[in-house]
Each structure stands twice: as structure tokens, then as C-alpha cells.
């Protein structure tokens, strides 16, 4: 009997550096402008409003928000394993829109906009080498 070589499968972040975890709580990582208070995710290093890079810094953003709009995606590439829910969550208190896979509810169930959501880190898909691609996702607050 031959033993197969145990290849080490890696865990890879879908968007490198998009989140940090502290005390089991994940946080999104973006940027903030100290002049006008605007927050950006994905990070922007020049504030779109003040048009300056002064005082724009990497910042830990929140991990809670409210549902803005969502859909069930039935057709997507195989690795994403449709159907799945995808939506925009308004991050609180930053009030910026975050694109995210939604998880932690039955797809037959109708989520109302305004539903309180919280961030979790989960497997998103596997890549062609079998590595696990993980991402932030949002689920209804449990």
C-alpha cells in the first residue's frame, strides 16, 4: 500500500490584510482620514473628500453593521459553489458600504434591509490547488 504524500494545504486570505482578529473578534482593516473623519474600505491612502494624504492612516474599522441590499447568486463559477447570498452591509459607525458574502441564515428565509449584521471569518472557497481561501463575511446578529 502506498501512502500519499501529505501535501500541506494553505489557508489564504481572499483579500490579504482585509481583517485582523483580536480576542476572537474579527475587525475590518481600512483607512481613516483624521481631517474629515471619513473611513475607507478597501483602504484609500488619499482621502477622496479632502484630497490629501496628510492624516490618512491605516485603521481598524468595525465588525457590525446593517443590511443594505442583498441577492441570492445562483450562477457563478463552480469554486464559489452557488447558490449563496451576497449583499452590501453598511458598517457602523463608519457608515460605509461593504460588499460581502452573507452567511448564517437559511437562503429560503427573507432578510429585511436594516437587519443587524455581524462579521465572521469563514472559508469562502477552495482554489485549484485545494488551498482554503478565507474571507470576512457577515451574518445576522445571533
Amino acid at each position, binding site marked *: 500500500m502506498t501512502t500519499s504524500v501529505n501535501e500541506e494545504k494553505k489557508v489564504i486570505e481572499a483579500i490579504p490584510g482585509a481583517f485582523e482578529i483580536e480576542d476572537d473578534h474579527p475587525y475590518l482593516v481600512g483607512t481613516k482620514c483624521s481631517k474629515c473623519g471619513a473611513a475607507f474600505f478597501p483602504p484609500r491612502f488619499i482621502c477622496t473628500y479632502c484630497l490629501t494624504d496628510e492624516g490618512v492612516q491605516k485603521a481598524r474599522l468595525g465588525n457590525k453593521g446593517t443590511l443594505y441590499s442583498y*441577492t441570492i447568486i*445562483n450562477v457563478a463559477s463552480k469554486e464559489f459553489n452557488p447558490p449563496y447570498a451576497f449583499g452590501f452591509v453598511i458598517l457602523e459607525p463608519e457608515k460605509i458600504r461593504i460588499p460581502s458574502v452573507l452567511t448564517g441564515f437559511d437562503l429560503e428565509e427573507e432578510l429585511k434591509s436594516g437587519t443587524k449584521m455581524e462579521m465572521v471569518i469563514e472559508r469562502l472557497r477552495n482554489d485549484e490547488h485545494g488551498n482554503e481561501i478565507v474571507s470576512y463575511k457577515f451574518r445576522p446578529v445571533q
Partner: protein
Amino acid sequence: MRDVAVIGVGMTNFGKYLDTPIKELGRVATWDAIKDAQISPKDIQIAYVGNACLGVITGQAMVLGQIILKEVGIRGIPITNVENACASGSSAFREAWMAVASGMYDVALAVGAEKLYAGDTRLSTKALAGGSEIEYEANLGLTMPGHWALRAKRFMEKYGTSREQFAKVSVKNHKNGCLNPRSQYKKECTVEEVLNSRMIADPLTILSCNPLGDGAAAAVLASKEVAAKYTTKPVWVAASALSSGSYDLDREISRNQLEEVAGRQAFEMAGIGPEDLDLAEVHDCFTIAEFMRVEGLGLVPEGEYGKWMDEGWSEIGGKLAVNPSGGLLAKGHPVGATGVAQVAEVVWHLREEAGERQVPGARVGLAHCSGGGVASDTPACCVHIFKK
């Protein structure tokens, strides 16, 4: 700025051309436009060629314009390849217009060409995903129909629009497509068929989405003095506008600011209002897109297009014919070709050469193309207005 006329247009039938090279599609459309303008290839002084996906699908990037135009004997002149997602063709047309309007050139050519069918849907889908910011959107599982489904859900919530009203866009455009010999689809459908077809991304079913397609279109533009030598039926470019997104992360996604901007600029430049239009070719990549765009461009008051659909006001012969060609939903959407094909459609109506789908007495028409999806906004919007 000088007056600019469209003096010739050409277009292939849109459809599936698996075994036809793109240079042949481009050559046929370009030669048709040159013959229509009754000029010689040597009279063309500058050319712009729009394409969006070929580089990803076949690897043939960078020099498509030169490859196509050598087939019709156009060489030596400045040729620029233009890429701007679904607005690639209309952006190429706008560059050609600017070249003549500025006084730098007297005769310019705009071509749009695309082959999306690759015998491998995944490859076509990968190429189209390039219209989004792949790293943060496609990479997380947001598809292009997904983008539009999110807007549709928000739109329904805000304006009370029903799935049936969205479906009526597809019904109307498929009906118009039956009257257009160049249309990819020539088959009518009912509201029930649209609603019951395969769900892609709720609420968008497959008949609510444009198909993959191949094809090409071309237009010859000339200054007023030169146009008078070649044609007795010039169609004037009354306005050209191109805008990009705001990408504000707190913007309302049921309305696109860049379309309001481009619409306003175009009407100001043309010195007319939406009520003066007889037809509009509007970028209906999805049923919801026709809603958002006719309202965003200011053609129809905000929140009222549902009523327009119920009353049939955007059908041929209605208040304002929207997508008499069949639009992207039926005529098809070979991405880079679409913007120039829209120009050809408007020109045919203003010359009263649109056959069975002719908008009666058409004097003023609008062509609109928007492309891509970035930071839940649209990155490119191009509007042209034409007058007899």
C-alpha cells in the same frame, strides 16, 4: 468647436461567430460604413477602435485596431485602440468626434468589435469580470448580474417597482428585436416567460440579462464642409459627454450620479431637452439597467418608468421609443461593438432607413452606454445626441 456629421455607418449582424475571426467582423462593418459614406479608405485621416475583452479571451491585446483596419487598406494614419468596459465603442466614437470637432482632422473613423463566444463560458465570464474591481468584488463572489441584482432589490424597495414591471423591459426589447434583421434574438417573450426563466441572481432571470455575443459596427465622421461633399443626409452629432463614477461609499445605489452628470451635460450641449427626443438607445444590459438609466439620464422622471412600462410609452410609436433596435437584451451585446452599433441605429432612424422598426418621423435620437461596476458604482458613462 466645429459641427461634426456622421456620414456613414455599418454593422454586422450580432450573434455567435465561433469560427469567424474578429478581424473579419471588423472588416465587414468598417467596409459597410465606408461604402455607406461613399468615400475611399484613403480619405480616412484618423481612427479609433473599441474593444474590451479580446485580450483576456484570446491574448490578442493591444493592436486590434491596426489588425482590422489593414484589412480595408487603412494604414499609415493614427490609430488608437480604446478600452472602456461596455462603453469602449461609444468612447471610441467620442474620440473620433473630438478629433473632427477640434479642427485637427476632417474625416475620422470609429469602430467597435468584440468576440465574446470562446467555446468556454468561464473564459468569457472571466473577461467580463474585468469590468469590476476584481480584487474586492469578483474575488469575493460578486458577479456582474449580482451587481445589478443588488441595485434592483434596492430600486424595488425605494420605488415600489414590481418584478413584472422589470420583465416588461425584456418583453418590449425582444419584440423590437424581431423587427431588426441584425438582431441576435428574433423571438418574442411574455412577462411570465421572463419571470419563470432560470434565476441568475434574484430578481434577475436569464431573460432579464443580456446574452454573450459577437459582432462589429463602424461609423465615419466628417466636418461640415467635407460632409457636404459626400452626403445629402448628414446626421449631426449634437452632443457628446463622458463621465466616470464618484465611488462614494455612502451613495445611493439605485441611482447613478455619473448618468445624471453625462445626461445633463449632453442636453446642455445639444440645447434641447429630453422631451425633444424621438428615440433613445439605452444600455439595457439588464432589465433594471434600462430603468435606472432612463431615469438617471433624466429621460423619464425619477420613479416613473414602471408606469411607462405599464402604459407602453417606451414602445415604438409611444412617447419615447427606448431601444427600438431590440437593445442589448435582444439585439445582443458584443461589448466593444455596442456603442458604435447604437450610433448606427440612431443614424438609420434619423435617415428613415430603419425598416419595420422605424420610429415615425424621428428627428432627434440619443445613444447611451455605461460600463463596468467599481466600488458599487459605474466607472464609465457615454452619451451622444444626434439630430437630422
